[in-house]
């Protein structure tokens, strides 16, 4: 208390000046509406700046919750999108939930790999979250890979950047099918082969999943054609595809469960056994 009194006595002139300056400013704003509006505008600039900084700090501190909520929202939207794409192929529209073949879950990439010949990604969801081997994994802009192994809380994903791994793909809007594979050099490029030269293709055409496997639903974008060669002999194009997803910078992914996958595989197996 004594210390405060000493400060007040020492700085009495400054304190008096500041006090009277405050009264002068209030008096000025009271006397003149022009000054009042100018002061109010100045006050808005100052308080707006302060509250914006506070909000930025609060947003930063609540980023984890925001991310979780956005991931959940994205999963739901992906699921809806798959539903609509599925509904386009039905003769009659139906809201029967049994027709919803796909369930989408979100996950975070804990380990990524793109420089090896055969790349594996680890995600933070496992069997305890309903993840099973064979489920497909997609990113914000396209396909990522397929679940290879699972543990209770983690899963490994065979990336599409995996030599000897090929995906059924088609050219959007043209119906031409082919096999997409990675040559092992550039993590942003893949090769689409087995597309017959009777099909007309062009640079810029979008490549999407063909839906002819039990893994990826039909119509998920993969990349765009950036170059193609018409062979002098043989009947197939050699097409170079630029991937839409940046697999070198993965943070959040979505796992798609095809509810009818086991039925598809059983039928496929029976058909193969029957032909032997």
């Amino acid at each position, binding site marked *: 208390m004594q210390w405060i009194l000493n400060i007040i006595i020492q700085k009495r*002139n400054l304190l008096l*000046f500041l006090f*009277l*300056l405050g009264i002068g400013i209030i008096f*000025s704003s009271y006397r003149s509406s*022009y000054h009042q509006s*100018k002061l109010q505008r100045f006050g808005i600039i100052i308080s707006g700046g302060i509250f914006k900084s506070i909000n930025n700090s609060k947003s930063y501190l609540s980023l984890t919750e925001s991310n979780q909520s956005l991931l959940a929202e994205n999963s739901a939207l992906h699921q809806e999108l798959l539903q609509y794409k599925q509904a386009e192929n039905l003769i009659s529209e139906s809201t029967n939930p049994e027709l919803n073949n796909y369930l989408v879950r979100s996950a975070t990439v804990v380990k990524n790999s793109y420089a090896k010949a055969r790349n594996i990604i680890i995600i933070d969801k496992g069997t305890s979250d309903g993840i099973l081997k064979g489920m497909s994994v997609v990113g914000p802009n396209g396909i990522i890979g397929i679940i290879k192994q699972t543990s209770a809380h983690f899963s490994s994903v065979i990336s599409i950047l995996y030599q000897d791994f090929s995906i059924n793909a088609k050219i959007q809007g043209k119906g031409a099918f082919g096999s997409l594979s990675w040559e092992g050099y550039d993590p942003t490029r893949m090769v689409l082969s087995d597309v017959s030269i009777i099909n007309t293709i062009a640079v810029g055409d979008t490549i999407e999943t063909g839906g002819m496997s039990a893994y990826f639903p039909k119509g998920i974008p993969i990349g765009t054609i950036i170059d193609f060669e018409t062979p002098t002999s043989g009947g197939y194009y050699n097409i170079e595809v630029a991937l839409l997803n940046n697999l070198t910078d993965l943070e959040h992914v979505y796992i798609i469960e095809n509810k009818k996958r086991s039925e598809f595989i059983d039928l496929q197996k029976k058909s193969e056994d029957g032909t032997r």
Partner: protein
Amino acid sequence: MVQDSLGILLGFFVAVTLQVLLFDHINLFGFSCPSVYLFFIISYRFDRSQFFLILLGFLLGFVLDIMQSSSGANTIATLLISFIRPWVIRFSFGIIPDSNSLLSMKSRMGNQALYIGLMILIHQFVLQSVAYFDVAHTTLILRNTLVNTALTFILLLATLNLTKKKN
């Protein structure tokens, strides 16, 4: 003590009356008006209480704003120069001036003119800035500051010389 206080009151009253009744009606070039009441702040004895001077400066500007129906610019400007006066004195006369009163000072006219000029300049700049309160009017603020400073300086210097001769 009583004599001093009465002297201050009288000086205060004379400054306000002269400014409001006489000098506020001078409108040189259509916009310039001398602030002769500053003589009260400038001639205030250096050895008297700074605390009291700040109060007086505030009151002087406040009363003038009431009388002139202005926006409070006089209050803020006069308060400011009352507060910064010790620094201006130190800058103009050195750490210890040779006299505690401008009216009995024997130091060079240059120092006295510097002191008076600085006080008026700072006062006018703050007064005009608060009156216009807009960066877009900087040219107007500077013009009014320079012209009013020159006019007030001439009048205050003449007043000081007259007062000194009387002493």
